[in-house]
């Protein structure tokens, strides 16, 4: 090991040391989004790091939650999923419901539920331990996070501006996800990057 290599090794180590000093408790906008790896509905394992190079939308969901139903039955989320897919954005549903709690499903059921409601996410990620949910401090279903191709968190919050379980409010509301997709497609930054999420509490194993 030459002196130069040794120095760069030391430098790398120091970087790592400092990664520990600067750790944040929750994901912060314009900071690297936490990585995870978990089982998916198609029976495989998804590693977020593998999606480096693509914009990723994380949608915390629970198909039995009335707020989630509002946005699926109205076609709002299915439309957003199509809009995302059309511009090459990877849409991941994440289910953090613990085993036996509302919204907890197996891969087959997840696929069936999505087929029934015309949903076309890129994949569904299972997080029954709540590890990913807690990593992102996800509290609601639905709740959204948008990560850019470099792995940096760009958005966290609600689907739209009117917190209610009433489908008729969707048309009146400002749709934050749709706006974000438009802004991203135009190469702009997301103007409202943090909004108040609303919905059902994520059913963590408590």
């Amino acid at each position: 090991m030459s002196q130069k290599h040794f120095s760069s090794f030391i430098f790398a180590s120091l970087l790592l040391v400092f990664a520990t000093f600067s750790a944040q408790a929750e994901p912060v906008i314009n900071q690297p989004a936490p990585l995870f790896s978990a089982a998916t509905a198609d029976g495989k394992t998804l590693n977020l790091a593998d999606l480096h190079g693509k914009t990723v939308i994380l949608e915390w969901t629970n198909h039995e939650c009335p707020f989630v139903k509002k946005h699926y039955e109205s076609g709002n989320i299915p439309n957003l999923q199509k809009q995302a897919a059309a511009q090459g954005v990877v849409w991941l549903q994440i289910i953090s419901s613990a085993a036996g709690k509302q919204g907890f499903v197996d891969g087959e059921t997840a696929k069936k539920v999505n087929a029934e409601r015309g949903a076309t996410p890129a994949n569904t990620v299972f997080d029954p331990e709540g590890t990913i949910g807690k990593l992102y401090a996800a509290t609601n279903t639905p709740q959204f996070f948008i990560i850019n191709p470099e792995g940096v968190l760009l958005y966290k919050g609600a689907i739209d501006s009117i917190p209610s379980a009433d489908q008729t409010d969707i048309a009146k509301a400002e749709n934050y996800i749709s706006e974000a997709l438009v802004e991203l497609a135009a190469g702009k930054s997301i103007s409202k990057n943090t909004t108040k999420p609303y919905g059902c509490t994520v059913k963590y194993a408590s």
Partner: protein
Amino acid sequence: MTMKILHVLFIALLMGSMSFTTQAADSFAATDQVKVQLIASVDGVHSGDEILVGVQQLIIPHWHTYWKNSGDSGLPTTIDYELPKGATVSDILWPVPEHITLGPVTNYGYSHEVILLSKLKIPSDAVIGSAFAVKAKVKWLVCKEECIPQEADLQLDLPVLSAGVEGGHGSPLIANALAALPLDSPWQFSLHAKGEQLLLNAKGLAQRATFIKKIQFYPDEWGKVVHSAAQIQSVDGDSLQLQLKSGDAPLTQDAVLSGILAVTKETGNGSITRGYSVTVPLTAAPVSDSKDTAADLVLSSALLLALLGGLILNLMPCVFPVLSIKALSLIQHADKDPLHTRLHGWAYTAGIQLSFLLLGVLLIALKSGGAEIGWGFQFQSPLFVLLVAYLMFAVGLSLSGVFTIGGSIMGVGSNLANRSGYSGSFFTGVLASIVATPCTAPFMGAALGFALTQPPLIQIAVLQSLGFGLALPYLLLSHWPSLQRRLPKPGLWMERLKQGFAFPMYAASVWLVWVLAQQAGINAVAVALAGMVAIAFAAWLYEATKLSATTARFSGASVASVFLLVALLGGIVAINTLAATAQPDNVVSHDQHWEAYSAARLKELRAAGKPVFVNFTAAWCISCLVNEKVALSQQTVIDTFKNGGITYLKGDWTNRDAEITHILADFDRSGVPLYLFYPAGTAEKPVILPQILTPEIVTQTVSAIQAVAVINQ
């Protein structure tokens, strides 16, 4: 005729259906979970009156509805009043909510019963003798684990009375509802920002602190304050201070924080909670505002603590051998050339200071715009653990004499005597900085916590002070011939000692591999050990061929490099994969005298007024493990906990854990260990114990505080 009958029938039907709708819009309605009732403060109204109307919700056990700020999830109840023309109604006057937690999620709402009042102004042209119809469309979300949105249409008809006729007492529930509303605060509030914290001061509240069981601030709006963050209290003179954590939509300077301060007092028969309205602008902290919290240090003491922390770092099991070897090399130089010796001391110091400067700059860069650091730098990185394990092992091999770097890189490894290159000393300093960092040494916690909330220059100053503390012993030795003379005479024993010091290094790498096992599972251990074999082989090959002919030396060095590369890259790739899939296993030992920490459990125990001892620890933190072994696992301590009815909670921070990071930040710490003791009953802030524990420190602190708590009650 038939036409007439049909006509009459039609009218009858119409009237029938009309009366049916009136009945449906009753003043009562019920779902499976909630009974709602529209009530008023009077039985009849006069034109121009201001009355109170409200909706009572009776909620079945375990379910709840929400306050105007529902917290992390949920939805506030809404009431849309439809009133005769000219009448006006106020927003809901919200009673003091409850704090409801579900796992990591905090909600503000109501269980069992709540009455949501509004003020209603009757128009001055209300016709005497007519019915004043109050219609209310009530929408609410009721949740237990699952949530159900519900709504009801309610109607209450109040006769419009002529002046002089008594309006009556209305619903008896109104009085209860008024009693549950927040009061104007008798205390003067002020609000200052400190890093990520918001410090809410209530002047005058502390005088009554002994009767107070619990204090909770409920912010009116989402995003101003992190709902789930612990609200740490402290007392400064007659002010009581609550430490809140700034949320996702933080307050700007002079913006107003509003909410309710709920104060629960202990009385003869049970506890009573009263809410007080808070409306306070965020202002700059007064200059003279020196606080009494342990971590709120003034710069000079932070620097001093950092210096002390640095000094103590020298005694860390991994650092000590490195330094002792370095110190021993002085013996050789001592008599020959004092200047030479001093320059070595300064080169070593420079190595350390530069490392810490680099750390400081990186820290600031990370804090100010971490995006450029990029993808993959993870908290409590197993990769870092692996690399340090390798480094320790390599240093150990070098001490054992398996290889010596011909040049001058590792001042520790090669022959001690003829060390002319100052770069050797310099890199020993760098090495010492690295091996010292995995664990927060005593005194460092508070100093680093302080540093992280300060402007860049102060951060760097604190880190530099820490580094100087680390460098100081050797620097002094190099400058003080009389100290050098106290060192024993050189001889073969030095070589033996050097070889002996290899073993703490091996032990350190064993410990790191054990940490790795906790983080990334058993396969990571295999990867790490295989990597070490490769490193050992590379070292041996390098050494064996070092003095051979050029070709042999070249091929030896190349093969050695390949092996080293395999060890490093293979380790990095494998550990990243393994760590991502590793599941933390919660092995519970049969004689365990502690419980796993969770914010909810702590809250529950505190709410019950039980004393709690909290230990935040991590497998990679050596002082944590030592404290657990020599103090917290001792029978005297276990007995003290048991006899005092103290619950011992242990929070494991080995891997990233947002909940614990939160708590640490609440105490201005950036790392473990952190020991907290919450005495029984009172709502006082916890006592922070020192970072080095003995059984006596724990038992005496606990007993003393328990005694005080009893007196105060």
